[in-house]
């Protein structure tokens, strides 16, 4: 169920496009309306999500320190694992966001002959990092469809990515990489018993979705050879609010576009918001300078404590016998 339902739902989505575009001729719906809806839902959804987070304070400063903190001057501080200033915190976060620092620590525990051993286990780090970076490059590359003329920066990325000129159109390394990475992430979820056990439908769905987006994109580019000029016209129209759909764009393009729209709509309501979470995580984005600088909790509650006078009045006799000094004025 956890696997079948997401799989089927992607399947249904694709059929919907085929019927809608191919049979019912709803080009306007799939080419114009749904993309706008998707962008709106994505933007509003993300604003609401971030607003929901931001509406609560961070009551305590709880960085996870993964190295020597700043203490005595002659003890070497580990500035990236236990940062105490803002630049150091930014350094730590850059490592997390750009290089998945914490995931790099990953180990795999094994128990044999009554002994626990912790082997290095960097596959998830490698696969995950490659997945995200290729996705980023692919997204950036897509800008050539949005911008006219195409900026030089994008050309540079394209020519690097298309380094191996083995097919026509030029084959992009990232296309192969992302296929490998998504397959790896999917297989891992399906085959590693532990991961399969913790996985939910909501973990399979985005992977299936991204996988389908990738496949439809690759088919479009290398097999069906969709007309890029017309797609640029469509997208140019979307961007300039001219609602026209050029004739003769293949159905595969609509499949690709629709799935991307679904991703956009799904994004703010799913675990994909981890993108925002990684920036806001208080165990990573706060400095370990707790005793140096007071952290304010806006709702710091009033709590009734057992005060010293209360304590003294209960134990007064015993304290006198034991010659423990009392508060001066009552001493006489």
């Amino acid at each position, binding site marked *: 169920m956890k696997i079948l339902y997401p799989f089927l739902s992607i399947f249904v989505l694709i059929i919907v496009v085929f019927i809608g575009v191919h049979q019912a001729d709803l080009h306007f719906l799939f080419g114009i309306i749904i993309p706008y809806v998707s962008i709106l839902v994505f933007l509003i959804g993300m604003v609401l999500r971030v607003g929901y987070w931001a509406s609560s304070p961070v009551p305590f400063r709880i960085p996870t320190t993964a*190295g020597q903190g700043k203490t005595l001057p002659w003890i070497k501080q580990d500035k990236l694992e236990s940062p105490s200033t803002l630049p150091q915190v930014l350094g730590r976060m850059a490592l997390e966001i750009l290089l998945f620092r914490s995931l790099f620590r990953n180990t795999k525990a094994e128990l044999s002959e009554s002994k626990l051993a912790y082997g290095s286990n960097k596959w998830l780090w490698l696969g995950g990092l490659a997945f995200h970076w290729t996705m980023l490059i692919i997204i950036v590359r897509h800008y050539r469809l949005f911008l006219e003329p195409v900026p030089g920066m994008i050309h540079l990325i394209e020519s690097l990515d298309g380094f191996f000129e083995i097919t026509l159109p030029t084959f992009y390394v990232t296309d192969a990489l992302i296929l490998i990475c998504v397959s790896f992430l999917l297989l891992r979820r399906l085959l590693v018993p532990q991961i399969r056990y913790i996985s939910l439908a909501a973990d399979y769905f985005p992977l299936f979705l991204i996988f389908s987006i990738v496949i439809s994109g690759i088919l479009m580019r290398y097999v069906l050879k969709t007309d890029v000029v017309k797609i640029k016209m469509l997208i140019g129209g979307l961007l300039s609010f001219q609602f026209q759909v050029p004739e003769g764009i293949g159905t595969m393009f609509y499949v690709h576009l629709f799935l991307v729209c679904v991703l956009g709509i799904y994004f703010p309501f799913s675990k994909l918001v981890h993108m925002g979470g990684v920036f806001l995580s208080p165990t990573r984005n706060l400095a370990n300078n707790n005793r*140096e600088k007071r952290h304010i909790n806006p709702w710091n509650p009033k709590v009734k404590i057992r005060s010293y006078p209360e304590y003294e009045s209960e134990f007064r006799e015993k304290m006198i016998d034991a010659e423990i000094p009392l508060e001066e004025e009552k001493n006489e």
Partner: protein
Amino acid sequence: MSKYVPTRKNLLKSIEEESNFLSGLTPEKEWLDTPISFRPGNWCHGGKPQVIESLDAPNPRKWSPNDKDWQLPANWQKIIHQGMKDQLDKSRTLKIFMDTCVRCGACADKCHFFLGSGDPKNMPVLRQELIRSIYRKDFTLGGKLLGRLAGAREMTEDVLKEWFMYFHQCTECRRCSVFCPFGIDTAEFTSMARELMHSVGVNINWIMEPASNCNRTGNHLGIEPHTFKQMVESLVEDIEDVTGVTVEPTFNRKGAEILFITPSGDIFADPGVYTMMGYLLLFHHIGLDYTISTYASEGGNFGSFVSHDLTKKLNAKMYHEAERLGVKWILGGECGHMWRVIHQYMDTMNGPADFLEEPVSPITGTKFENARSTKMVHIAEFTADLIKNDRLKLDPRRNNHRTVTFHDSCNPVRAMGMVEEPRYILKNVCNNFHEMPENTIREQTFCCGSGSGLNTNEYMDIRMRGGFPRANAVKHVHDKHKVNLLTAICAIDRVTLKTLMEYWVPGVEVSGLHELVGNALVMEGESERTEDLREDPLEEIEEDEDEDI
């Protein structure tokens, strides 16, 4: 040993063979369909009514977790729902952690309870899901619409029982959080769950009774002021027996420069008392102007295992007393969760401590700039500074009968970043020191398995499982380097590791850091030392090498 734990051989067999994922077996049922079962050794007694009453806490009653009927308030589900809403509203941390997990599984095999039980619900990610599933149902659209397909479920009494079980199989050690790519901290879920459970009267006596005692008398065991003083004085006599030196601690003395606060375990529990003797020797050695309070006679904070309010209530005494006595700053003894509270919570909760001064070591003149605001210094920072400035006369050979390894306690290392100070001190006070394997120390250290208020006898099965990864690493250096002493800077460790070692690695004793400092200190006017602070005989010292020591 305890009747609540099988023999070592049987427990090992159970860990190796029954444990699900560790032995390569997948559980038959999904976790959502796996019921819990209470058996001897896997649950703690519930809070006693008089204890709960004394803290004005909700729903005092006589109950036991293995009762079928937990006698919850009629509207308990509403209380939990409202409590969850309040906590989420009050904490972005929780919201982010609820929404961000991608179930990548990096944390799965990082928890000592998982490694010692194989129980899938002890994978930190599933521990979080125990609450996250309710969060989805109550607070997210997907969960409301799709129910179980979205990983959501209804809050029922069975779920509450599951919470009780698994949020008391988390010691809030934060090891998982080191490995999570988003830094998700399961301890936050555990403290959330414990606070929610507490709001309907579900808690454990081992935490509530010390908290209540601490509130009334100032310390966990409920030691009253006169007895507290007597206990310290009997340690003074022991010191005299071993060293011939008379140390003179004072109590509740106004005008002292420094207030010294340590966990009460150091006053009465073996082997914590030897660490206390170490402190007293050290302070005498350097002529420190300090006092000990009978009112704030507890560094530890069992409130921190239940709720933020109770944490604050118990912690408030430190500043309250420091202000009353008019000291300049506070020095804190070796403890784990005590330091989590002091370092990450105290200033926020009970500060600002304007009535204190920025801490300066009266001996070396060093300013502890890192404690400028909170005004409380860790004894390891203080002593490391003394050694670096050559203010201590030390003879490390007096610890030659010890081959030492160091256990990083969870909170000092993962909440303060205290890594090097204790190691620096150790290397100066003993000659035989060996580290445990890399993935088991420093920020990757394994919990003792009984932290966060779980070190009670009736919980022995779970404790010995939870401590298994730590014990395993100690066994490694015990076999390889003949390590016979496990040193830690935590009062809970000193008690729990002792039990753990007796069970898993007999032949390894447990000590605090300052016990070894106390052994090595060459005191003015001391008699010839033939015994260490435990009154164990010292090794013969060849006097010809370093005459000048």
